[in-house]
Protein backbone atom coordinates (compact mmCIF):
# COMPACT_ATOMS: atom_id res chain seq x y z
CA UNK A 1 0.00 0.00 0.00
CA UNK A 2 2.80 2.43 0.81
CA UNK A 3 4.35 2.84 -2.63
CA UNK A 4 4.67 6.17 -4.37
CA UNK A 5 1.46 8.15 -4.26
CA UNK A 6 -0.35 5.06 -2.96
CA UNK A 7 -2.46 5.59 0.11
CA UNK A 8 -2.40 9.31 -0.27
CA UNK A 9 -4.97 11.99 -0.70
CA UNK A 10 -3.40 14.74 -2.79
CA UNK A 11 -4.90 18.14 -3.27
CA UNK A 12 -3.05 20.00 -5.97
CA UNK A 13 -3.47 23.72 -6.61
CA UNK A 14 -7.25 23.77 -6.55
CA UNK A 15 -9.23 26.92 -7.17
CA UNK A 16 -12.93 27.13 -6.48
CA UNK A 17 -15.41 29.85 -7.12
CA UNK A 18 -19.04 30.00 -6.01
CA UNK A 19 -21.46 32.68 -7.20
CA UNK A 20 -18.62 34.40 -9.10
CA UNK A 21 -16.57 34.68 -5.93
CA UNK A 22 -13.18 33.09 -5.56
CA UNK A 23 -13.52 30.91 -2.47
CA UNK A 24 -10.39 28.74 -2.69
CA UNK A 25 -7.27 30.13 -4.27
CA UNK A 26 -4.47 27.70 -5.02
CA UNK A 27 -4.77 25.15 -2.22
CA UNK A 28 -2.36 22.21 -2.14
CA UNK A 29 -1.57 19.57 0.44
CA UNK A 30 -1.21 15.82 0.91
CA UNK A 31 -2.82 13.66 3.54
CA UNK A 32 -1.11 10.32 4.15
CA UNK A 33 -3.71 7.62 4.46
CA UNK A 34 -1.49 4.55 4.59
CA UNK A 35 0.04 2.94 7.69
CA UNK A 36 1.97 6.13 8.20
CA UNK A 37 -0.98 7.92 9.75
CA UNK A 38 -1.35 11.61 9.56
CA UNK A 39 -3.41 14.22 11.36
CA UNK A 40 -3.88 17.58 9.70
CA UNK A 41 -5.91 20.40 11.12
CA UNK A 42 -6.95 23.36 9.09
CA UNK A 43 -7.63 26.46 11.10
CA UNK A 44 -8.86 29.88 10.17
CA UNK A 45 -11.63 32.39 10.59
CA UNK A 46 -15.15 31.51 9.72
CA UNK A 47 -15.80 32.17 6.06
CA UNK A 48 -12.19 31.41 5.12
CA UNK A 49 -13.24 28.52 2.91
CA UNK A 50 -12.45 25.57 5.15
CA UNK A 51 -15.75 23.74 4.75
CA UNK A 52 -15.72 24.49 1.03
CA UNK A 53 -12.38 22.67 0.79
CA UNK A 54 -13.86 19.55 2.40
CA UNK A 55 -16.82 19.73 0.05
CA UNK A 56 -14.48 19.80 -2.92
CA UNK A 57 -12.88 16.59 -1.69
CA UNK A 58 -16.32 15.04 -1.20
CA UNK A 59 -17.25 15.95 -4.77
CA UNK A 60 -20.00 18.36 -3.74
CA UNK A 61 -18.29 21.45 -5.16
CA UNK A 62 -16.17 21.35 -8.31
CA UNK A 63 -12.93 23.36 -8.43
CA UNK A 64 -12.40 25.03 -11.80
CA UNK A 65 -8.71 24.23 -11.79
CA UNK A 66 -6.28 21.93 -10.02
CA UNK A 67 -6.79 18.30 -9.08
CA UNK A 68 -7.87 16.14 -6.18
CA UNK A 69 -6.50 12.62 -6.26
CA UNK A 70 -6.64 9.53 -4.11
CA UNK A 71 -4.07 6.79 -4.72
CA UNK A 72 -2.81 8.90 -7.59
CA UNK A 73 -6.13 8.83 -9.43
CA UNK A 74 -9.03 11.27 -9.64
CA UNK A 75 -11.85 10.43 -7.22
CA UNK A 76 -14.22 9.06 -9.82
CA UNK A 77 -16.05 5.81 -10.56
CA UNK A 78 -14.30 2.81 -8.98
CA UNK A 79 -11.76 4.98 -7.18
CA UNK A 80 -14.62 7.04 -5.77
CA UNK A 81 -16.13 3.88 -4.30
CA UNK A 82 -12.79 2.88 -2.82
CA UNK A 83 -12.26 6.34 -1.37
CA UNK A 84 -15.72 6.65 0.16
CA UNK A 85 -15.44 3.14 1.59
CA UNK A 86 -12.42 4.30 3.56
CA UNK A 87 -13.95 7.61 4.58
CA UNK A 88 -15.93 8.69 7.61
CA UNK A 89 -17.11 12.26 7.94
CA UNK A 90 -18.50 14.30 10.82
CA UNK A 91 -20.32 17.42 9.68
CA UNK A 92 -20.33 20.77 11.39
CA UNK A 93 -23.83 20.61 12.81
CA UNK A 94 -23.77 16.82 13.08
CA UNK A 95 -26.17 16.51 10.11
CA UNK A 96 -27.99 13.54 11.63
CA UNK A 97 -31.04 12.42 9.65
CA UNK A 98 -33.89 13.64 11.79
CA UNK A 99 -36.47 11.23 10.42
CA UNK A 100 -34.44 8.22 11.57
CA UNK A 101 -33.64 6.93 15.04
CA UNK A 102 -30.13 7.26 16.39
CA UNK A 103 -29.14 3.67 15.69
CA UNK A 104 -30.50 3.91 12.15
CA UNK A 105 -28.39 7.02 11.68
CA UNK A 106 -25.31 5.24 12.93
CA UNK A 107 -25.99 2.19 10.78
CA UNK A 108 -27.13 4.19 7.78
CA UNK A 109 -24.31 3.19 5.47
CA UNK A 110 -25.05 -0.48 6.04
CA UNK A 111 -28.83 0.02 5.90
CA UNK A 112 -28.90 1.93 2.62
CA UNK A 113 -25.36 1.93 1.23
CA UNK A 114 -23.74 -0.51 -1.16
CA UNK A 115 -22.58 -3.01 1.48
CA UNK A 116 -25.64 -4.55 3.07
CA UNK A 117 -25.90 -6.80 6.10
CA UNK A 118 -28.78 -8.20 8.17
CA UNK A 119 -30.65 -5.55 10.13
CA UNK A 120 -30.09 -7.28 13.48
CA UNK A 121 -26.33 -7.22 13.01
CA UNK A 122 -26.42 -3.59 11.97
CA UNK A 123 -28.29 -2.62 15.11
CA UNK A 124 -25.88 -4.56 17.29
CA UNK A 125 -22.88 -2.98 15.60
CA UNK A 126 -24.45 0.46 15.85
CA UNK A 127 -24.97 -0.02 19.58
CA UNK A 128 -21.34 -1.02 19.97
CA UNK A 129 -20.25 2.16 18.21
CA UNK A 130 -22.58 4.25 20.35
CA UNK A 131 -21.00 2.77 23.46
CA UNK A 132 -17.57 3.42 22.01
CA UNK A 133 -18.32 7.14 21.72
CA UNK A 134 -19.81 7.26 25.20
CA UNK A 135 -23.54 7.08 24.54
CA UNK A 136 -25.82 4.70 26.37
CA UNK A 137 -27.68 1.94 24.56
CA UNK A 138 -30.88 3.67 25.63
CA UNK A 139 -30.15 6.49 23.19
CA UNK A 140 -30.10 4.04 20.26
CA UNK A 141 -33.86 4.11 19.93
CA UNK A 142 -34.23 7.84 20.51
CA UNK A 143 -34.40 10.39 17.73
CA UNK A 144 -31.62 12.91 17.12
CA UNK A 145 -33.83 15.80 18.23
CA UNK A 146 -34.07 14.23 21.69
CA UNK A 147 -30.31 14.38 22.22
CA UNK A 148 -28.25 17.31 23.49
CA UNK A 149 -25.74 19.00 21.18
CA UNK A 150 -22.83 17.05 22.63
CA UNK A 151 -24.71 13.76 22.37
CA UNK A 152 -25.64 14.53 18.76
CA UNK A 153 -21.98 15.15 18.03
CA UNK A 154 -21.13 11.80 19.58
CA UNK A 155 -23.81 10.09 17.50
CA UNK A 156 -22.43 11.74 14.38
CA UNK A 157 -18.98 10.47 15.29
CA UNK A 158 -20.41 6.99 15.82
CA UNK A 159 -21.96 7.17 12.34
CA UNK A 160 -18.60 8.18 10.89
CA UNK A 161 -16.70 5.31 12.51
CA UNK A 162 -19.39 2.67 11.81
CA UNK A 163 -17.51 1.20 8.85
CA UNK A 164 -14.10 1.50 10.51
CA UNK A 165 -12.77 4.03 8.04
CA UNK A 166 -9.08 4.76 7.58
CA UNK A 167 -9.71 8.41 6.75
CA UNK A 168 -11.73 10.67 9.03
CA UNK A 169 -12.91 14.19 8.28
CA UNK A 170 -14.15 16.43 11.07
CA UNK A 171 -15.74 19.79 10.29
CA UNK A 172 -15.59 21.95 13.43
CA UNK A 173 -16.19 19.05 15.84
CA UNK A 174 -16.36 21.30 18.89
CA UNK A 175 -18.30 24.23 17.45
CA UNK A 176 -21.29 25.17 19.56
CA UNK A 177 -20.32 22.94 22.49
CA UNK A 178 -19.54 24.07 26.02
CA UNK A 179 -15.82 23.96 26.93
CA UNK A 180 -16.08 20.81 29.04
CA UNK A 181 -17.97 18.85 26.40
CA UNK A 182 -15.61 20.22 23.75
CA UNK A 183 -12.63 18.91 25.69
CA UNK A 184 -14.21 15.48 25.98
CA UNK A 185 -14.94 15.42 22.26
CA UNK A 186 -11.35 16.41 21.48
CA UNK A 187 -10.02 13.52 23.57
CA UNK A 188 -12.54 11.15 22.06
CA UNK A 189 -11.34 12.05 18.58
CA UNK A 190 -7.73 11.68 19.64
CA UNK A 191 -8.41 8.19 21.03
CA UNK A 192 -10.42 7.14 18.01
CA UNK A 193 -7.79 8.07 15.49
CA UNK A 194 -5.01 6.44 17.42
CA UNK A 195 -7.05 3.27 18.15
CA UNK A 196 -8.18 2.79 14.60
CA UNK A 197 -4.90 3.94 13.03
CA UNK A 198 -6.82 6.33 10.86
CA UNK A 199 -5.67 9.56 9.29
CA UNK A 200 -7.63 12.65 10.12
CA UNK A 201 -8.35 15.93 8.44
CA UNK A 202 -9.93 18.28 10.95
CA UNK A 203 -11.28 21.74 10.44
CA UNK A 204 -11.51 23.87 13.51
CA UNK A 205 -11.13 27.26 15.03
CA UNK A 206 -10.62 25.77 18.46
CA UNK A 207 -6.97 25.93 19.51
CA UNK A 208 -7.58 23.10 22.00
CA UNK A 209 -8.56 20.81 19.17
CA UNK A 210 -5.30 21.68 17.44
CA UNK A 211 -3.29 20.98 20.59
CA UNK A 212 -5.02 17.69 21.21
CA UNK A 213 -5.04 16.03 17.81
CA UNK A 214 -2.89 17.84 15.22
CA UNK A 215 0.38 16.72 13.70
CA UNK A 216 0.49 19.40 11.06
CA UNK A 217 -1.43 22.66 11.02
CA UNK A 218 -2.54 24.74 8.05
CA UNK A 219 -3.87 28.22 8.57
CA UNK A 220 -6.30 29.36 5.93
CA UNK A 221 -7.22 32.94 5.19
CA UNK A 222 -9.44 34.04 2.33
CA UNK A 223 -9.03 30.79 0.47
CA UNK A 224 -5.25 30.53 0.79
CA UNK A 225 -2.91 28.80 3.20
CA UNK A 226 -0.97 31.56 4.89
CA UNK A 227 0.92 29.44 7.40
CA UNK A 228 1.92 25.78 7.39
CA UNK A 229 3.77 24.09 10.19
CA UNK A 230 3.87 21.62 13.06
CA UNK A 231 1.70 21.99 16.10
CA UNK A 232 4.76 22.61 18.29
CA UNK A 233 5.76 25.63 16.26
CA UNK A 234 2.48 27.46 16.58
CA UNK A 235 3.20 29.12 19.89
CA UNK A 236 6.58 30.43 18.84
CA UNK A 237 5.57 31.52 15.36
CA UNK A 238 5.98 35.17 14.47
CA UNK A 239 3.47 34.91 11.63
CA UNK A 240 0.91 37.74 11.75
CA UNK A 241 -2.04 35.51 11.02
CA UNK A 242 -1.04 32.95 13.63
CA UNK A 243 -0.64 35.64 16.28
CA UNK A 244 -4.00 37.02 15.28
CA UNK A 245 -5.57 33.59 15.52
CA UNK A 246 -4.07 32.86 18.94
CA UNK A 247 -5.12 36.27 20.21
CA UNK A 248 -8.75 35.90 19.28
CA UNK A 249 -9.04 32.64 21.17
Amino acid sequence: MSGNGKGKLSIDRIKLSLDNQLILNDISFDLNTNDNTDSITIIGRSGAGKSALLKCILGIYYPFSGSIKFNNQPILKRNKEIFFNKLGMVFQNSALFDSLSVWENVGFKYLYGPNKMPKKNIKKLAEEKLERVGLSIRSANQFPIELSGGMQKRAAIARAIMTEPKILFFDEPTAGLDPITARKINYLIKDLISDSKASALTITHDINTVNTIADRVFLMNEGKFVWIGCRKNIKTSSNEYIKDFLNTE
Partner: protein
Amino acid sequence: MKLLIYLIKIIQKLGCKAEYFCVSIGQLLKISLVSLSEALTPPFYAEPFLKQLIFVGFNSLPVVGVTALFTGAALALQIFSGGSRFNAETVVPSIVAIGMTRELGPVLCGLIVAGRLSSSIAAEIGSMKVTEQLDALKSLSVSPIRYLVTPRLASSVICLPILTLISDIIGILGGLVIGITSLQFSLLVYTEYTIKFLEMSDIYSGLIKSVAFGIIISLSGCYFGFTSKGGAAGVGKSTTSAVITASMLILASNYLLTAFMFQK
Protein backbone atom coordinates in the same frame (compact mmCIF):
# COMPACT_ATOMS: atom_id res chain seq x y z
CA MET B 1 -29.25 58.00 -24.84
CA LYS B 2 -30.72 57.35 -21.43
CA LEU B 3 -33.50 55.41 -23.01
CA LEU B 4 -30.98 53.24 -24.85
CA ILE B 5 -29.11 52.42 -21.65
CA TYR B 6 -32.38 51.66 -19.97
CA LEU B 7 -33.38 49.35 -22.82
CA ILE B 8 -30.04 47.56 -22.70
CA LYS B 9 -30.46 47.06 -18.98
CA ILE B 10 -33.88 45.57 -19.49
CA ILE B 11 -32.57 43.24 -22.14
CA GLN B 12 -29.72 42.20 -19.85
CA LYS B 13 -32.17 41.46 -17.09
CA LEU B 14 -34.33 39.43 -19.42
CA GLY B 15 -31.23 37.59 -20.55
CA CYS B 16 -30.34 36.73 -16.95
CA LYS B 17 -33.88 35.54 -16.30
CA ALA B 18 -33.82 33.46 -19.47
CA GLU B 19 -30.51 31.91 -18.50
CA TYR B 20 -31.79 31.16 -15.02
CA PHE B 21 -34.93 29.66 -16.53
CA CYS B 22 -32.92 27.40 -18.86
CA VAL B 23 -30.62 26.30 -16.03
CA SER B 24 -33.65 25.48 -13.88
CA ILE B 25 -35.28 23.48 -16.65
CA GLY B 26 -31.99 21.65 -17.13
CA GLN B 27 -31.76 20.81 -13.42
CA LEU B 28 -35.36 19.68 -13.32
CA LEU B 29 -34.81 17.43 -16.33
CA LYS B 30 -31.71 16.00 -14.71
CA ILE B 31 -33.53 15.21 -11.47
CA SER B 32 -36.37 13.59 -13.44
CA LEU B 33 -34.13 11.47 -15.62
CA VAL B 34 -31.85 10.35 -12.81
CA SER B 35 -34.75 9.46 -10.56
CA LEU B 36 -36.44 7.57 -13.36
CA SER B 37 -33.30 5.57 -14.11
CA GLU B 38 -32.77 4.94 -10.40
CA ALA B 39 -36.40 3.97 -9.95
CA LEU B 40 -35.90 1.15 -12.41
CA THR B 41 -32.59 -0.22 -11.13
CA PRO B 42 -31.78 -1.78 -7.76
CA PRO B 43 -31.19 -1.17 -4.90
CA PHE B 44 -34.78 -0.30 -4.03
CA TYR B 45 -35.52 1.27 -0.69
CA ALA B 46 -38.73 -0.30 0.53
CA GLU B 47 -39.00 1.47 3.86
CA PRO B 48 -38.87 5.10 2.68
CA PHE B 49 -41.29 4.14 -0.09
CA LEU B 50 -43.84 2.63 2.29
CA LYS B 51 -43.58 5.61 4.63
CA GLN B 52 -44.34 7.91 1.73
CA LEU B 53 -47.17 5.72 0.51
CA ILE B 54 -48.91 6.04 3.85
CA PHE B 55 -48.21 9.75 4.07
CA VAL B 56 -49.40 10.56 0.57
CA GLY B 57 -52.23 8.12 0.14
CA PHE B 58 -53.77 7.42 3.45
CA ASN B 59 -53.34 10.80 5.09
CA SER B 60 -54.75 12.64 2.07
CA LEU B 61 -57.97 10.63 2.11
CA PRO B 62 -60.06 12.76 4.50
CA VAL B 63 -59.45 16.09 2.81
CA VAL B 64 -59.80 14.63 -0.68
CA GLY B 65 -63.03 12.91 0.33
CA VAL B 66 -64.60 15.97 1.90
CA THR B 67 -63.69 18.14 -1.08
CA ALA B 68 -65.15 15.67 -3.55
CA LEU B 69 -68.33 15.25 -1.54
CA PHE B 70 -69.13 18.95 -1.41
CA THR B 71 -68.06 19.56 -4.98
CA GLY B 72 -70.29 16.77 -6.29
CA ALA B 73 -73.19 18.13 -4.26
CA ALA B 74 -72.71 21.71 -5.44
CA LEU B 75 -72.30 20.53 -9.00
CA ALA B 76 -75.65 18.73 -8.85
CA LEU B 77 -77.41 21.89 -7.64
CA GLN B 78 -75.78 24.06 -10.29
CA ILE B 79 -76.54 21.72 -13.15
CA PHE B 80 -80.10 21.33 -11.94
CA SER B 81 -80.69 25.07 -11.89
CA GLY B 82 -78.89 25.55 -15.20
CA GLY B 83 -80.65 22.62 -16.81
CA SER B 84 -84.10 23.74 -15.66
CA ARG B 85 -83.80 26.82 -17.89
CA PHE B 86 -84.33 24.58 -20.89
CA ASN B 87 -86.22 21.77 -19.21
CA ALA B 88 -83.22 19.45 -19.11
CA GLU B 89 -83.13 18.64 -15.40
CA THR B 90 -82.57 14.97 -16.18
CA VAL B 91 -78.99 15.61 -17.30
CA VAL B 92 -77.92 16.15 -13.69
CA PRO B 93 -76.68 12.59 -12.97
CA SER B 94 -74.71 12.18 -16.16
CA ILE B 95 -73.11 15.65 -16.13
CA VAL B 96 -72.12 15.26 -12.49
CA ALA B 97 -70.52 11.91 -13.31
CA ILE B 98 -68.74 13.17 -16.41
CA GLY B 99 -67.65 16.40 -14.76
CA MET B 100 -66.26 14.61 -11.74
CA THR B 101 -64.42 11.86 -13.59
CA ARG B 102 -62.97 13.91 -16.41
CA GLU B 103 -62.17 17.20 -14.74
CA LEU B 104 -62.99 17.87 -11.14
CA GLY B 105 -61.89 14.57 -9.63
CA PRO B 106 -58.35 14.64 -11.01
CA VAL B 107 -57.84 18.41 -10.87
CA LEU B 108 -59.16 18.96 -7.35
CA CYS B 109 -57.29 15.93 -6.14
CA GLY B 110 -54.14 17.17 -7.84
CA LEU B 111 -54.42 20.66 -6.38
CA ILE B 112 -55.14 19.42 -2.88
CA VAL B 113 -52.33 16.93 -2.88
CA ALA B 114 -50.06 19.60 -4.42
CA GLY B 115 -50.83 21.83 -1.45
CA ARG B 116 -50.10 19.09 1.05
CA LEU B 117 -47.32 17.20 -0.63
CA SER B 118 -45.19 19.52 -2.78
CA SER B 119 -44.85 21.80 0.20
CA SER B 120 -43.93 19.07 2.62
CA ILE B 121 -41.46 17.48 0.19
CA ALA B 122 -39.82 20.85 -0.52
CA ALA B 123 -39.66 21.67 3.18
CA GLU B 124 -38.23 18.31 4.14
CA ILE B 125 -35.57 18.13 1.43
CA GLY B 126 -34.85 21.85 1.75
CA SER B 127 -34.17 21.60 5.46
CA MET B 128 -32.02 18.53 4.85
CA LYS B 129 -30.07 20.60 2.37
CA VAL B 130 -29.43 23.56 4.64
CA THR B 131 -28.43 21.30 7.53
CA GLU B 132 -25.95 19.39 5.34
CA GLN B 133 -27.94 16.16 5.57
CA LEU B 134 -27.81 15.86 1.78
CA ASP B 135 -24.02 16.15 1.92
CA ALA B 136 -24.04 13.53 4.67
CA LEU B 137 -25.99 11.17 2.39
CA LYS B 138 -23.32 11.56 -0.27
CA SER B 139 -20.54 11.00 2.23
CA LEU B 140 -22.26 7.72 3.17
CA SER B 141 -22.32 6.62 -0.48
CA VAL B 142 -26.09 6.91 -0.77
CA SER B 143 -27.55 8.82 -3.69
CA PRO B 144 -29.89 11.57 -2.45
CA ILE B 145 -32.03 11.07 -5.54
CA ARG B 146 -32.39 7.35 -4.99
CA TYR B 147 -33.05 7.75 -1.30
CA LEU B 148 -35.30 10.81 -1.40
CA VAL B 149 -36.75 11.46 -4.85
CA THR B 150 -37.49 8.00 -6.16
CA PRO B 151 -39.70 6.88 -3.24
CA ARG B 152 -41.64 10.16 -3.38
CA LEU B 153 -42.07 10.02 -7.12
CA ALA B 154 -43.15 6.38 -7.07
CA SER B 155 -45.60 6.80 -4.23
CA SER B 156 -47.27 9.89 -5.67
CA VAL B 157 -47.58 8.26 -9.09
CA ILE B 158 -49.30 5.31 -7.44
CA CYS B 159 -51.43 7.27 -5.00
CA LEU B 160 -52.80 10.04 -7.21
CA PRO B 161 -54.87 7.76 -9.49
CA ILE B 162 -56.21 5.88 -6.48
CA LEU B 163 -57.15 9.11 -4.72
CA THR B 164 -58.70 10.38 -7.94
CA LEU B 165 -60.80 7.27 -8.30
CA ILE B 166 -61.97 7.62 -4.74
CA SER B 167 -62.81 11.26 -5.24
CA ASP B 168 -64.72 10.39 -8.44
CA ILE B 169 -66.83 7.96 -6.51
CA ILE B 170 -67.40 10.25 -3.53
CA GLY B 171 -68.20 13.18 -5.81
CA ILE B 172 -70.81 11.17 -7.68
CA LEU B 173 -72.24 10.03 -4.35
CA GLY B 174 -72.41 13.67 -3.25
CA GLY B 175 -74.44 14.49 -6.34
CA LEU B 176 -76.62 11.48 -5.73
CA VAL B 177 -77.41 12.48 -2.15
CA ILE B 178 -78.49 15.95 -3.28
CA GLY B 179 -80.33 14.52 -6.28
CA ILE B 180 -82.41 12.25 -4.09
CA THR B 181 -82.95 14.53 -1.14
CA SER B 182 -83.65 17.87 -2.77
CA LEU B 183 -83.99 17.44 -6.54
CA GLN B 184 -86.75 14.83 -6.63
CA PHE B 185 -84.75 12.06 -8.31
CA SER B 186 -85.35 8.51 -7.21
CA LEU B 187 -82.33 6.45 -6.27
CA LEU B 188 -83.03 4.07 -9.14
CA VAL B 189 -83.35 6.75 -11.80
CA TYR B 190 -80.28 8.64 -10.61
CA THR B 191 -78.03 5.59 -10.62
CA GLU B 192 -79.42 4.40 -13.94
CA TYR B 193 -78.68 7.75 -15.61
CA THR B 194 -75.24 7.87 -14.05
CA ILE B 195 -74.27 4.45 -15.31
CA LYS B 196 -75.94 4.80 -18.68
CA PHE B 197 -74.08 7.85 -19.83
CA LEU B 198 -70.74 7.31 -18.13
CA GLU B 199 -68.11 5.71 -20.36
CA MET B 200 -64.95 3.93 -19.29
CA SER B 201 -62.96 6.47 -21.28
CA ASP B 202 -64.20 9.26 -19.01
CA ILE B 203 -62.69 7.48 -16.05
CA TYR B 204 -59.47 6.50 -17.81
CA SER B 205 -58.82 9.98 -19.08
CA GLY B 206 -59.08 11.36 -15.57
CA LEU B 207 -56.76 8.70 -14.23
CA ILE B 208 -54.18 9.38 -16.93
CA LYS B 209 -54.24 13.03 -15.97
CA SER B 210 -53.77 12.16 -12.34
CA VAL B 211 -50.62 10.18 -13.11
CA ALA B 212 -49.18 13.29 -14.76
CA PHE B 213 -50.20 15.37 -11.75
CA GLY B 214 -48.48 12.90 -9.45
CA ILE B 215 -45.23 13.35 -11.36
CA ILE B 216 -45.58 17.15 -11.33
CA ILE B 217 -46.31 17.28 -7.60
CA SER B 218 -43.42 15.15 -6.43
CA LEU B 219 -40.84 16.52 -8.84
CA SER B 220 -41.59 20.15 -8.17
CA GLY B 221 -41.39 19.49 -4.44
CA CYS B 222 -38.05 17.73 -4.85
CA TYR B 223 -36.68 20.33 -7.25
CA PHE B 224 -37.41 23.28 -4.97
CA GLY B 225 -36.11 21.31 -2.00
CA PHE B 226 -32.80 20.56 -3.67
CA THR B 227 -32.32 24.10 -4.89
CA SER B 228 -33.24 25.87 -1.67
CA LYS B 229 -30.54 27.83 0.09
CA GLY B 230 -30.04 30.34 2.83
CA GLY B 231 -31.33 28.74 6.02
CA ALA B 232 -34.89 28.52 7.28
CA ALA B 233 -36.11 31.55 5.32
CA GLY B 234 -34.84 29.98 2.09
CA VAL B 235 -36.68 26.77 2.90
CA GLY B 236 -39.88 28.73 3.47
CA LYS B 237 -39.54 30.41 0.10
CA SER B 238 -38.92 27.18 -1.76
CA THR B 239 -41.94 25.61 -0.06
CA THR B 240 -44.18 28.34 -1.43
CA SER B 241 -42.58 28.16 -4.87
CA ALA B 242 -43.09 24.41 -4.95
CA VAL B 243 -46.84 24.67 -4.30
CA ILE B 244 -47.37 27.51 -6.75
CA THR B 245 -45.35 25.87 -9.49
CA ALA B 246 -47.02 22.53 -9.00
CA SER B 247 -50.51 24.09 -9.06
CA MET B 248 -49.80 26.12 -12.19
CA LEU B 249 -48.28 23.14 -13.97
CA ILE B 250 -51.25 20.98 -12.98
CA LEU B 251 -53.74 23.45 -14.43
CA ALA B 252 -51.73 24.01 -17.60
CA SER B 253 -51.04 20.34 -18.20
CA ASN B 254 -54.69 19.58 -17.46
CA TYR B 255 -55.69 21.80 -20.33
CA LEU B 256 -53.08 20.31 -22.65
CA LEU B 257 -54.00 16.75 -21.77
CA THR B 258 -57.69 17.50 -22.18
CA ALA B 259 -57.12 19.09 -25.57
CA PHE B 260 -54.95 16.16 -26.59
CA MET B 261 -57.30 13.41 -25.41
CA PHE B 262 -60.59 14.81 -26.66
CA GLN B 263 -59.47 16.24 -29.95
CA LYS B 264 -60.94 13.63 -32.20
